[in-house]
């Protein structure tokens, strides 16, 4: 059990290139499930590997349990890692794979067997599989062996590098909840890397969004969704993504699709103080409410994606011709080619600085 701290942690791969991880500050609480999420090249995996000790630091430090581990060997950090491709030893049986770390720590054989069996039970791993080689297992079983190898060690911190990316969609959803539930039961601090924002939102107690090696925002999934600090987080979190449209400022609001969208006073004051002439307006798909011809935002339906419970409308806006996505009820959605109008609550509108991407007036 331990908390983890990144303090100005920096990693530079090549001298002239921008840092892969740039002065990362992150506090992870004891027993917390922290998800690092971001697009590829955002530095999330590098950040995890720095914590594992597989990647040296070029600046700053990393602490585990209030102890500086920046220059501590991986094996002495008391951590366990689940790799993307599982990295099981092909010549060893499942039981030997899971017990290898204990063998290296000279744990007696009886104790090793006991802990391997315990972990197998915890993961619903059939005891018959323990004598098999990884080659004879299915993808899902291999994934669980990789998890088992981490659990057997009873480490202070779990590190997981996209452990679900090699599973098929159905198994991924199933395993997702199993891992979250297991983490809750064991109460071990976990750092989990993924590029999938749905995984991040459903599993993490808190989610750290990274982009270009920099931490954008670290908060609970709810807060990230409701209060993104900048345009990147707003666009990255949520599926389908938030509609982001550049709109010129007018008296009392912003001009979009042939109408003026009223903006809260706080946004207007902040925008005029910053001397902005236009804003990036963000509206989540579910906040575009269909309004039977009485709404202000006008457009034409281009495509309808039926999801069952609801439907996604791809709409071309009047005037600008930009596309937005709206989520509506699944029954009787408008047909492609039909003209529609939408209404938006002023509170549901996000505004961002077009130059810096920072949130305005929050």
């Amino acid at each position, binding site marked *: 059990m331990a908390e983890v701290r990144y303090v100005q942690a920096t990693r530079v791969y090549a001298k002239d290139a921008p840092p892969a991880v740039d002065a990362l500050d992150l506090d992870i609480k004891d027993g917390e499930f922290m998800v690092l999420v971001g697009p590829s090249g955002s530095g999330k995996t590098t950040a995890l590997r720095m914590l*594992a*000790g*597989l990647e040296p630091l070029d600046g700053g430090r990393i602490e585990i349990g209030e102890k500086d581990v920046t220059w501590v060997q*991986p*094996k002495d950090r008391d*951590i*366990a*890692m689940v*790799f*993307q*491709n*599982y*990295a*099981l*030893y*092909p*010549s*060893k049986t499942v039981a030997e794979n899971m017990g*290898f*770390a204990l063998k*290296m*720590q000279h744990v007696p054989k009886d104790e090793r067997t006991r802990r391997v069996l315990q972990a197998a039970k915890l993961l619903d791993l059939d005891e018959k599989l323990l004598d098999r080689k990884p080659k004879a297992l299915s993808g899902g079983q291999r994934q669980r062996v990789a998890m088992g*190898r981490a659990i057997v060690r009873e480490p202070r911190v779990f590190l997981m590098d996209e452990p679900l990316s090699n599973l098929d969609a159905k198994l991924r959803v199933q395993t997702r909840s199993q891992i979250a539930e297991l983490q809750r039961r064991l109460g071990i601090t976990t750092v989990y890397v993924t590029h999938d924002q749905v995984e991040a939102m459903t599993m993490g107690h808190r989610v750290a969004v990274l982009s270009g090696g920099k931490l954008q925002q670290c908060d609970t999934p709810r807060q990230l969704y409701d209060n993104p600090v900048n345009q990147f987080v707003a666009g990255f979190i949520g599926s389908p993504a938030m509609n982001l449209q550049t709109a010129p400022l007018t008296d009392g609001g912003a001009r979009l699709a042939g109408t003026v969208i009223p903006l809260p006073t706080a946004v207007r004051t902040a925008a005029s103080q910053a001397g902005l002439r236009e804003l990036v307006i963000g509206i989540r798909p579910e906040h575009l409410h269909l309004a039977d011809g009485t709404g202000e935002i006008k457009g034409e339906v281009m495509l309808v994606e039926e999801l069952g419970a609801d439907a996604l409308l791809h709409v071309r806006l009047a005037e600008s011709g930009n596309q937005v996505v709206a989520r509506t009820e699944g029954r009787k959605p408008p047909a492609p080619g039909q003209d529609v109008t939408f209404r938006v609550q002023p509170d549901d509108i996000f505004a961002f600085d077009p130059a810096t991407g920072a949130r305005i007036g929050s």
Partner: protein
Amino acid sequence: MSASAVPARTRMPGPQRFREMSNTVGWGVVAWVLGIAFFLPVLWMVITAFKPESAAETWPPRFTFSPTLAEFRLVFSGWGPYVTHSAIATIGSTILVLLLGVPAAYALAVHPVKRWRDGLFFFISTKMLPIVAAIGPLYVIALKAHLLDSIWLLIILYTAMNLPLAIWMIRSFMLEVPGEMLEAARLDGAGRFREITEVIMPVVSPGLVSTALICVIFAWNELFLALNLTVTNAATMPMYLISSVPQEGLYIAHLSAAATVASVPVIIVGWIAQRSLVRGLSMGAIK
């Protein structure tokens, strides 16, 4: 229209099918002709080994003769010391090559040392000089070290001869070991020694077998060094073959019998290692 289209889909039209078939047959014939061309001299050697000396050297060659084991008896009566020397030099040098080659390849592949490219080039550059150019100095060194006509000399030289190739081969096999697996081993607390013995070796073992086999073949068949640096105390099988050629008289049948016997060990080793060999030589081709 549709009626005529159906059979065209299910069965290939005549000329096209003929072309396809003749193609397959054509390549088959080429493969057989080449295979037989390679095998024929070997077959001729084995057949000749069973002939009496008088029947071996006739022109045109005779295919009817009464087979005899006389020449084999003659070979087995004199091969004792030669085959022992060959076995010791071959096995000894191959073990040494693996013992030295594995750590060397590890240092060049898994955790590359500084200037590993130069190291790699140095190893292969030792094979660029023809061995004839070095035989003089080698003779003098062996003489001063009192190693002339000693089996130790052959073990050392065969190790030096095979090591560069072995390092290159083992290195390429080690590059196939997934990086994640080595990182997992580091996190699991395996040191350098455990990393090699418990994680890398099991993965590259088919490659090690094929490397060992190639070293065995090269060392077993080596003649030049043995001929120039040994006389009796360390004379090997290839030297025995040469010694079967007398100054005068008939010798083809005897030489064939000796050559047949000399090639048997390599064939047996190759046959045993066949499965590993195919896996080893095709490593990296499939994931």
